[in-house]
């Protein structure tokens, strides 16, 4: 999947010589460089490069939000590092050709695809958490519904025993009814607790958006 997108980038921009996809901790996910190159060191240095520029920003008291790209041009070869996802980056090494500008827009959609594939951001993680909790709430509500139906059934049974329509132990049925009501109270409390947790997670996402 990622390979395909690299191939597409290279065919859309033939001047791209090599591609390195790396995480901010220096781990290289995939690269077109051969294994003779010291790849872990390459990833480490590329990651350090970004950190150094961030330090320069901090020294100059500029606000460092999220970097978008970093360009380093020389006579023959140029490097452009683009931010992919939350913690991933892509470095494109390309041949410098006269009178020709690199059209990054041509590869934007491939880069977006790669980002989706290799780096899940924190918001996505919270979304997953919300889904899990919503599933749990759904399950609890189903259980609550079942208990309510059973309360109704046991309630009728109790009434029938009291009215002498059917035979049975009133004490036992009343106790069962009490137990069921207690379980319902507990279920309602759990549902409420989980709903608060969901609301808190949603609030967290909202805050990160702002």
């Amino acid at each position, binding site marked *: 999947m990622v390979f395909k997108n690299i191939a597409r980038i290279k065919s859309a921009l033939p001047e791209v010589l090599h591609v390195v996809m790396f*995480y901010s901790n220096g781990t290289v996910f995939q690269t077109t460089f051969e294994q003779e190159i010291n790849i872990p060191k390459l990833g480490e240095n590329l990651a350090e490069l970004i950190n150094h520029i961030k330090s320069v920003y901090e020294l100059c008291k500029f606000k460092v939000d999220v970097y978008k790209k970093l360009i380093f041009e020389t006579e023959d070869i140029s490097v452009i590092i683009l931010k992919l996802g939350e913690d991933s980056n892509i470095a494109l090494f390309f041949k410098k050709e006269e009178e020709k500008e690199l059209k990054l827009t041509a590869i934007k959609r491939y880069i977006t695809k790669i980002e989706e594939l*290799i780096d899940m951001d924190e918001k996505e993680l919270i979304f997953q958490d919300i889904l899990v909790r919503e599933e749990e709430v759904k399950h609890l509500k189903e259980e609550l519904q079942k208990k309510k139906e059973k309360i109704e059934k046991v309630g009728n049974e109790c009434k029938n025993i009291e009215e002498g329509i059917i035979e049975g132990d009133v004490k036992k049925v009343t106790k069962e009814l009490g137990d069921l009501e207690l379980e319902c109270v507990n279920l309602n409390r759990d549902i409420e607790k989980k709903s608060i947790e969901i609301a808190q997670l949603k609030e967290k996402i909202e805050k990160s958006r702002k």
Partner: protein
Amino acid sequence: MIISIIIILGCFLAVIILIITNKLNRAISSLFGAVITYFVLVFIEGFDFSVIVELLFGSPPPPSSPFEGFVNLHSLIIIIGMMMIVQIAHEAGTFQFIAVKLIKFSRGKPTVLLIIFCTVTVFISAILNNILTVIIIIPLTITVSRILNINPSPYILTQAVLVNIGGTIFSISSIPNILITTFANIEFLEFFLNVGILSLIVFILTLCFFILLYKGELKVPEEGVQVLKEFNVWNVVQNKRLFYQSIISLIILFALLIIIPSTIISSDIITLAIALILIIITRLDPKNIISKIDFELIFYLLGIFIIVGGLEITGVTDVIGNSILNLGGNNFYLQIILLLWFSAYLSSCIDNIPITKVLIPVADTMSLSVSPSTRSQFFYSLALGANWGDNLTPLGDNILVGNLAEQNKRPISFKSFFKLGFITTNYQIAIITTYYTLIFYTQVGFILLSTIIFIILIAYLINKFGPTKIKSRFNSFFSKSREIIIR
């Protein structure tokens, strides 16, 4: 003597407090404490400078057993040798390669992934120290979680807890082990057979506990699995030649430590020799390797050697040893259990290196009351307690796990870490207690073990075949307990 005891004990406690509160670098604090101890021993107790040399490197061997003695020097040589070997293996990407290769084997099955993550952690920490293990494994776990589109928290938490189990597999796995085995003259294989195998059994039982705890939480999307397949494992290896050389050297090191008894060549000399040969054949820059030796740790150890030596000379360690002995009465089993729990709870809030150093003479005092054949049990118990107790609180090395997770934008909850670490460590020490009961009080141990197995069996049968009402109550109790621990 009383004044000396008060000053040296105060010095030891001050060093501990400075380290816990992070007010002063640990090497500087311990060296400063060592200088004060020197003044006390020389000017109050009337010793000459040779006592300091003896405390730094250990006493010379007695004529009857020339292979004993200089225990501190032997420990230092093993630590330096291991640091060199591990540094080269780390540079070569050996551990990262093994980890990624094994993770790819999981094929995205969540439980298999948890098993592999945990096994890799234990395997790496059996060779590296805990700090280096988490530095390698935590960022790697987060990277893999990004690729797989999963929440790394359960994996990070379980790995952080299991790092300490790896530390008791071999005698060279952690600094406390090195200090204990060189002092008590315990062979590499002897330690593995008595402590290492036990640690592996406890690891398997802990893993079962984790699977039970996290089973419902673990999910891996199919797309992530496909992307993980494209992760080239060789991207973590600097160069293949260096990689193979470091693997071979590790294999040779383990083989020699097993084959050669320390009465012929001591483990430290074997380790240092392998490290030096490795530096020569890999043609790496020796300056670079030497500069990466953790001198802070070495200076810290030297300082601790002197302070604890001072406590030994003034008789403080004997008092602690005799107190535990008295608490345990004349019961060998009770003494071992007390030492196990005592060392575990002490090392939960204090760095386990000084604790081990203080408790070694304590264990030695205690072991004098038993036959030489069972003497080592005290040291095994100390090794288990001092290494595992670390996880009872998220302090010390565990803070690093939290920092690494945060640096990689996947912060973990301090509360979850504390709950999981505390419960798991008590569970692990309880397993060892059951084991010792089984060994020393076979009947009581058998009843205890049968009761545990019976409870587990009943729980399983209720869950499988029990009436719906009981089953649902049982499940609700189980899931509530689970939630209390993991959320």
